[in-house]
């Protein structure tokens, strides 16, 4: 894995995330709304400092011979922004997140990540880009043969980090998501909520530049949901661009953050109330 640590750069050596322990959603600070549902910055093949982290231009996607799941989406997520992604079940939220993660290719249109046009990327260019993204999967995708510590440490391990360097951060993060006593437990031994928290810890442990989360609070109680949201807010405060897919509209409303809403394949920006 020589050379891979460059992809993480300084982020892998940042100090542990410090998050207030309050569980009040009302304490979530107001965001800088930077999403633009119209008039995107044109994707280019050169990384642009301070430019949009994600830029979709007329992106459509359909599976097989079916109709468009997503249709002519054009939007940008500016660096340091915080958005929810809402929509009915089956509206295409997960599909959109997969497009950002480059797990799917659009049927048409262009997607730029960190200023790079993904269409022009070779296969070898994907891993360094993906290491800048933290992803919380709806189905968690934990590795059942690794204990909780190793699951959380996975991104750091893939970046070439040494256990001695990252174990303090991993243990602290596990403590923050309430899994200190489950550090050596394996995912099948954890409850659904615990697995969810583990997946979130894995996604944020490397302090990604972009965090995308698919229903991260779906299997946790309200108190833990708010607490997880505060973790995301704190990450965002430190510079991480955040996009969270959810259908918990109450949480969205109380957070004071804007939402990108998908309806019938189209995207609308809903400003914070």
């Amino acid at each position, binding site marked *: *894995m020589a050379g*891979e640590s460059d*992809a993480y750069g300084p982020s892998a050596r940042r100090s542990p995330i410090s998050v207030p322990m309050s569980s009040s959603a009302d304490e979530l600070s107001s965001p800088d709304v930077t999403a633009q549902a119209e008039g995107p910055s044109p994707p280019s093949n050169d990384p642009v400092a301070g430019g949009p982290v994600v830029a979709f231009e007329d992106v459509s996607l359909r599976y097989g011979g079916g109709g468009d799941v997503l249709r002519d989406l054009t939007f940008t997520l500016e660096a340091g922004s915080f958005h929810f992604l809402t929509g009915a079940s089956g509206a295409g939220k997960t599909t959109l997140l997969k497009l950002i*993660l*480059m*797990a*799917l*290719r659009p049927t048409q249109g262009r997607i730029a990540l960190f200023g790079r046009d993904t269409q022009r990327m070779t*296969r*070898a260019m994907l*891993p*360094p*880009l*993906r*290491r800048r993204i933290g*992803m919380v999967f709806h189905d968690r*995708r934990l*590795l059942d*043969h*690794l*204990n909780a*510590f*190793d699951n959380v*440490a*996975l*991104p750091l*391990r*893939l*970046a070439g980090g040494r*256990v001695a360097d990252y*174990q*303090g951060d*991993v*243990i602290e993060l596990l403590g923050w998501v309430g899994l*200190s006593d489950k*550090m*050596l437990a394996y995912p099948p031994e954890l409850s659904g909520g615990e697995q969810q928290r583990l997946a979130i810890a894995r996604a944020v442990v490397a302090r990604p530049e972009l965090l995308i989360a698919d229903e991260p609070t779906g299997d946790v109680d309200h108190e833990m949901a708010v607490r997880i949201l505060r973790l995301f807010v704190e990450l965002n405060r430190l510079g991480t661009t955040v996009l969270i897919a959810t259908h918990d509209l109450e949480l969205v409303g109380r957070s004071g953050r804007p939402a990108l809403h998908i309806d019938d394949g189209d995207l609308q920006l809903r400003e914070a109330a």
Partner: protein
Amino acid sequence: MSELAPPPPGPLLPAEDARDGALVFVVAVLCFIACLAVVAALASNRAAHGWRAQLRDSATVVVRPSADETADAAAARAAAALADVRGVAEADALEREKAEALLEPWLGKNGLPDDLAIPRLVAVQLDPRHPATADALSAALVSAKVDATVDDHSLWLKDVLRAAFMAEAAALGTATLIAAAAGAVIAFATRASLQARGDLVSVLHLAGAEDRYIAGLFLMRFARLAAIAGAIGAGGAAVVTLVAKLVGGADGVTPILPVAWSDFAPLILCPLAAGAVAAVAARVTALNLLKAVT
């Protein structure tokens, strides 16, 4: 730093797989056969060298007695003439009994009529460093006025060497084919393992692992399994070879294919060779399959 220090990181690829036992067995059997083929090639080579030395360093002279001389006397004169030729270490006329013994496989043990003219043979041992040529031997016999034919074994030598070469080539070819078969088995197992671990591969990919890193996980796994199988196969082949060497005896395998202690040395390399073949097969297969994973 917490006092609850975690244990060393677990393997990214699960260490155990239900198919490992069958894979190790198949590769071990292939390694066993390959090792025996290599030992057979070495023994063939050694046998060929031995036969060549025996045939090249000796000649046989068939003496036909004349009407005014007994066969024994003619053979004795021939031996005396040949002994003086430069490049001859020793020339011995075989008595009638020995000549009859040579004919026994064709004429039986019942004895031959005394009046049957049996050609006498003169066994000639040549100087290994400067062996006399067949022409020189024939010239000496002509000078001694002995009616005889010199057989310097050159005709047999070519056939024997060709046969030995064929045996050696067949053994090495077999070993090569088996190595290829082992590689194919490992490639098949890698493909199955990679497909069975699609969830793991997907997570690693999306977490930013490069293809060569993921392929390296499978490489290490199958190289280790193949090395274990190679050790088992080589161990089995060593036992069989040892039995052939120690128990074969005069009527066993050893006289035909002489096994030396040095023949056991290549068996030590079997685990390494098996591991190397598996590493290449697993890496190539994994990299090809990973191209299809987004």
